[in-house]
């Protein structure tokens, strides 16, 4: 199995040669990626497989870090990378550590091949007739972090990404299994876009809105998780200054817990080899523990590492969320709708954006439903929800009781793309501005 045959003791000895000062820390990161893709009909070439393996060696010294990467895993690549980050060259050559990795196996992905027809069938079952183009990919990633003293457990992630396009819109998202429920989920989004294809955008609105779990997850990701990343907080001062700041009402608690993510993407350590935490980003409306990697955590005793993520071996770790949770409230979804008469039900987001300098966020919705007689029924066209981060959690007036995995998608910040996951209920917000795009 990948990485089981890496001589971690030999790697640790090699890495340890980098440590010249008491404050130094060093690690080696090994990564294997397999991506199997089935492009939409009409696109050549057909079946596509990408296989990557490589390593990164890093030395951290106070506020400085040096990273050397390679697109192969062998003893020579490791020692070359060590030599490139070393501040002082070792007096004696070390033998290259032993590696014996199994070559990649032929990629088979029957579940990927069968998914487009499952989605088309689910669309037809909803009495909709529309051409659907589907790009389906399976992603597998195995990683191992070896420090100078300790090696982390081998971590594995497996998930699927789906992009569906019709003449009336595009939908994209991530799944941990490609089953009937996933096909139904995609079909629902496509049919909703089809039914709202000629609907007018809603009039400007700041009354009650109910965000379905998928939309609530993206809202929390943009306006809570990104806002509480140590590197984002550092734009306005030291990240620890955020601890204790009241962000919203007492009924709002947001957690990042990679160990509670859906099983195929569940993690015990982050991409720096640090054990993950059940991290209360916001507890009872107050900021408790921002997202930190090892470098930011080293700047304050009040900050904890465990949220370091890498876009890949060629990128340095950055603080990011992995799996967000919103602590459930007491309202059923029916109750949330009942108190939002004439308001908007916002099921899913096409795009989210946080402006850390201005302290504002923006979510774009491909469509919405007007709530009438306690039911989200009348389709409307696309709309945008904008607000200030400081006002967001105060605007959450009610939280649903039914949490579910939702809103999984790609997060692209600073040009680095990572999958993110969430388990959240629906929420009702008031006082946020919804306008036409």
């Amino acid at each position: 199995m990948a990485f089981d045959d890496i001589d971690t003791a030999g790697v640790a000895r090699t890495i340890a040669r980098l440590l010249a000062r008491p404050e130094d820390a060093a690690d080696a990161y090994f990564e294997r990626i397999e991506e199997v893709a089935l492009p939409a009909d009409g696109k050549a070439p057909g079946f596509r497989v990408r296989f990557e393996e490589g390593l990164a060696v890093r030395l951290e010294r106070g506020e400085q870090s040096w990273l050397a990467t390679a697109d192969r895993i062998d003893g020579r690549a490791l020692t070359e990378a060590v030599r490139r980050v070393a501040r002082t060259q070792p007096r004696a050559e070390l033998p290259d550590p032993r590696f014996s990795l199994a070559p990649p196996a032929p990629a088979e992905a029957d579940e990927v091949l069968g998914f487009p027809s499952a989605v088309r069938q689910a669309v037809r079952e909803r009495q909709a007739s529309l051409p659907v183009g589907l790009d389906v990919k399976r992603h597998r990633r195995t990683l191992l972090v070896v420090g100078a003293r300790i090696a982390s457990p081998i971590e594995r992630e497996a998930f699927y990404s789906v992009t569906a396009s019709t003449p009336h819109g595009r939908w994209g998202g991530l799944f941990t299994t490609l089953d009937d429920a996933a096909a139904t989920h995609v079909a629902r989004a496509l049919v909703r876009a089809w039914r709202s294809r000629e609907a007018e955008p809603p009039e400007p609105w700041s009354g009650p809105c109910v965000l379905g779990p998928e939309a609530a997850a993206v809202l929390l990701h943009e306006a809570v998780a990104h806002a509480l990343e140590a590197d984002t907080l550092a734009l306005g001062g030291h990240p620890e200054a955020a601890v204790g700041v009241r962000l919203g009402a007492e009924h709002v608690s947001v957690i990042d817990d990679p160990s509670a993510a859906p099983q195929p993407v569940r993690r015990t350590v982050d991409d720096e080899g640090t054990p993950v935490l059940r991290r209360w980003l916001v507890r009872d409306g107050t900021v408790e523990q921002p997202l930190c990697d090892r470098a930011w955590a080293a700047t304050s005793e009040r900050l904890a590492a465990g949220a370091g993520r890498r876009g890949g071996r060629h990128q340095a770790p950055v603080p990011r969320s992995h799996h967000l949770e919103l602590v459930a409230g007491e309202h059923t979804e029916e109750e949330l709708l009942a108190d939002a008469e004439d308001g908007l039900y916002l099921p899913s987001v096409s795009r989210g954006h946080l402006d850390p300098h201005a302290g504002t966020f923006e979510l774009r919705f491909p469509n919405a439903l007007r709530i009438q007689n306690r039911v989200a029924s009348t389709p409307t066209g696309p709309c945008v929800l904008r607000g200030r981060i400081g006002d967001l959690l105060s605007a959450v007036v009610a939280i649903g009781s039914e949490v579910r995995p939702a809103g999984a998608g790609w997060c692209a910040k600073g040009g680095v793309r990572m999958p993110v996951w969430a388990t959240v209920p629906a929420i009702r917000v008031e006082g946020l501005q919804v306008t036409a795009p």
Partner: protein
Amino acid sequence: MVNDPFRSDPPRDDRAPSDRQRGDKRGEALAETLSVLEGAGWPEAEVYAKTGRSRTFVVEGSRLISTVRREEGWAVRAGDPRRSFFYAATGTPRPDAPWPEADGEGLRLPSPRPVARWTAPADLDAPLVGENDALALIRGIGRALDTELPGARLIRAVLDDGASEAQLLSSRSMAARTRQRVAILRLEAGKQKLAARVHVEALAREARLLNPVALARRLADRLLVAERGETPVRDRGEILLAPPVAARLLAGLVPLWLGPSAAGQALGELHGRLGGKPLTLIDNGRLPGGLVEAPVDGEGVTARGVRLVAEGVAQQPLLAWWQTPRQPGLASGCSQRPSWRDLPRPGPTHFFLTPSPETSVADLVADLSRGYYLLDAEGEARINPGGDRFALPVCGFSIDRGHASGAVTGAELVGSIRALLRGILATARDLTFLPAAGGMVGAPTVLVRGLELVRRPS
């Protein structure tokens, strides 16, 4: 005839012996892998390999992240008229790779054509920037910025310096090799008591060619505008667009010239008049001195310059070889392949509005009796080809009788695409390129009429 651009004029090979040895081995592995694919009965097979080395320095205050990357990967496209597959992997090409089962669409690859003589630029071989030189450049910009505008400070600098080499062999006897070398510097600056941050980006073949004082002046100009600027409610007239503004607008228009149908839909009939004489648009993969100049594109097809618009009259869209099977002479070698992971796709190479060598920027400013000189774009252009409208967040100066009379910020340049193309009155000589749309998009300073400056929506 094979498309080996270096066959008649081989470059000096001054790679380190270990790198040269690896390169030779890679060439052998490429040929062996192609041979295996042909032996397996695939009539269309292509093996592509790319290696790269780069250094990145991220400086934020006293924080430094220094990265040295060695990237190497390869890819195979193989198929017949009915089915095909794509396999990509890190490392050196492997003839025994676990090929996926062919499926889906058939595949066709380009055939070789004669390649005009090509001499690789000498500075492709320049060494990558070292840590001391990189930090000296960034600190030099910081010092120059403080001199230009006391109280201003560099908040973040990211210097990327990289070189790459790609090789390609196909069952149609295509053989090509290309090299590239680019340094990109991205800067973010701020000033005391000013909430806004400003961003500036600069490119050069080598990092040592970046001028710290000129960059500091650009940042200082932008900060002054952000600090003192006012937002016009709505105004129009003659407007000068500095290269970063004009190129950003042009980048948004690139899709209008991509592919046979895009051009037809967006611009109406070819050979129709789109604008005045100063409107000449060219795409040229071989542009001398261009940052991505190369003899062939990502599929080994000969790169050449094509006039897309000549003196205001539409000539042809930008076409890859497979998009114009009946008129192969219209194809220009414009298949992009940013990485070994990527499939080739049509896109701009050096896509630019031609400059006027005899006109300086100062001439255009002096001739402007009343209007605006827009220095920079503060975001991407929003373009709606269907609605023929665009909006670009901008900043700059208002101009009165050839002199700056005030700073402008929080504004958007808006108008129709047709009005933009028709409204180009003159261009200056200062052609400048930006990385955009997967290639390089360039423009000189442009004088336009018929556009509006409005308050940016909050």
